[in-house]
């Protein structure tokens, strides 16, 4: 029997899903850790990014933080938090993941607000909007695509990093991969890898669609470029103008 067949066999057995420490329980903890981290990351990074972007202050900080965070291994931060007194609680991975959810959201929100055409803000003020209204009704909608890009990047990041928590004390889907390696059962390893990859891609698609729905104005059909509809001029502009936070970052 091939490894792939063994993986499918494992996934096809309902007991592997419903038993204690089964796939459903691991998935639950995985989503709880990732969801809480993304939520906390948004609660911290969105207001800060909006404030920095609106006032135009601290751009170097927002963008620099995003670049520096790349150099810090997520596994290392997870481990450091795992050996603190809260190590065996769910809060250790949540805090570690929140740290990594902040930079992409912060940088993209900042850049999104900064890239709003100054004339638009001028016009909004001339129409009698106060600062709050300018932020809510003019800047926020225009910055929305980038903000959602940041949230999507952070979301995929936390789902991916939550997997690593299984190398320490966390009971996330990475546990399958780890125990598969532990028992030298590559069928289980592959089953875990399939589930983890699927969850990450699903996160990307769901958050990507959410961004598409929340973005006002003219909409581009996602992935239309795949069918060669875009001319190369547009494609090159899109690549060249990738905002700092959107530099593809291999997720851990």
């Amino acid at each position, binding site marked *: 029997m091939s490894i792939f067949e063994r993986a499918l066999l494992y996934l096809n057995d309902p007991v592997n899903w419903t038993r204690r420490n089964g796939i459903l329980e691991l998935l639950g903890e995985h989503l709880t850790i990732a969801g809480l981290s993304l939520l906390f990351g948004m609660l911290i990074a969105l207001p800060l990014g909006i404030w920095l972007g609106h006032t135009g202050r601290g751009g170097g900080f927002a963008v620099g933080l995003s670049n520096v965070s790349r150099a810090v*291994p997520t*596994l*290392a931060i997870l481990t450091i938090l795992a050996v603190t007194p809260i190590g065996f609680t769910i809060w250790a991975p949540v805090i570690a993941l929140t740290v990594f959810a902040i930079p992409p959201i912060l940088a993209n929100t900042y850049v999104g607000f900064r890239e709003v055409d100054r004339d638009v803000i001028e016009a909004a003020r001339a129409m009698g909007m106060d600062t709050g209204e300018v932020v809510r009704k003019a800047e926020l909608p225009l910055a929305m695509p980038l903000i959602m890009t940041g949230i999507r990047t952070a979301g995929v990041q936390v789902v991916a990093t939550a997997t690593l928590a*299984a190398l320490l004390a966390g009971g996330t889907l990475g546990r399958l991969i780890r125990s598969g390696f532990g028992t030298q059962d590559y069928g289980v390893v592959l089953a875990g890898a399939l589930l983890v*990859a699927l969850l990450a891609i699903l996160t990307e698609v769901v958050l990507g669609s959410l961004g598409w729905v929340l973005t006002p104005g003219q909409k581009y059909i996602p992935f239309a470029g795949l069918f060669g509809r*875009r001319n190369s001029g547009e*494609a090159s502009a899109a*690549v060249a103008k990738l905002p700092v936070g959107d530099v593809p970052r*291999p997720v851990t």
Partner: protein
Amino acid sequence: MRVAAVLAVDSAPNPWINFGYLADNWDRILPYLGQHIRLTLISVLIGTVIALPLAVLARRIRLFAAPILGLSTLLYTIPSLAMFAFIAPYTGLSPTTVIIGLVLYSLVILVRNFLAGLQAVPDEVREAARGMGYGPARMFLKVELPLALPAFMTGLRVATVSTVALVTVGVIVGQGGLGQLIIVEGFRRNYFKAPIVFGTLLCILLALVLDQVLAFTERRLTPWTRRGT
């Protein structure tokens, strides 16, 4: 077992910062650092060798650009632990597993940046070079490559820094460089904090050093960008 471990933590001093550990175990740490550097450099090098022709292909044949970019987006969505788990059944607990995974990730960054660099070469410049009798090969080497170099180097720096961080996850197949120090020597040895802290610091330091080396190389390779400053 967990109770015993906790008791051990409580009974022995286990400070976060412990320079004695660094001094006493330097010859233990060095091989991990060496493996970390080796895995990083090999992966980025192979990634560069593969990314360059892919980027050129995507630039020349427009139909390829979107699928290559789309595929790389899909690739970078896959978590590294899953990536190594996909590869390990075929290559086992070897450095090859880690290198294949890291090459794939660095490809994502490198192809995008290389392509962006090539696409940013102004058409007028190409036109002028063609008018001066440059053939395709000479045009690529003498005109396109130098002009795309800053974007290349940016990609190379991002890929290198990311790869240094990702090597640690190789611990799942026992080939994690400094990740071995952090997990095996630290976490799994009664939560010994010193190797965890120094492993982390060495990782970050390595990333910053390699980044600065590449930044220096970039400045040397593109003296024209400094003119006027």
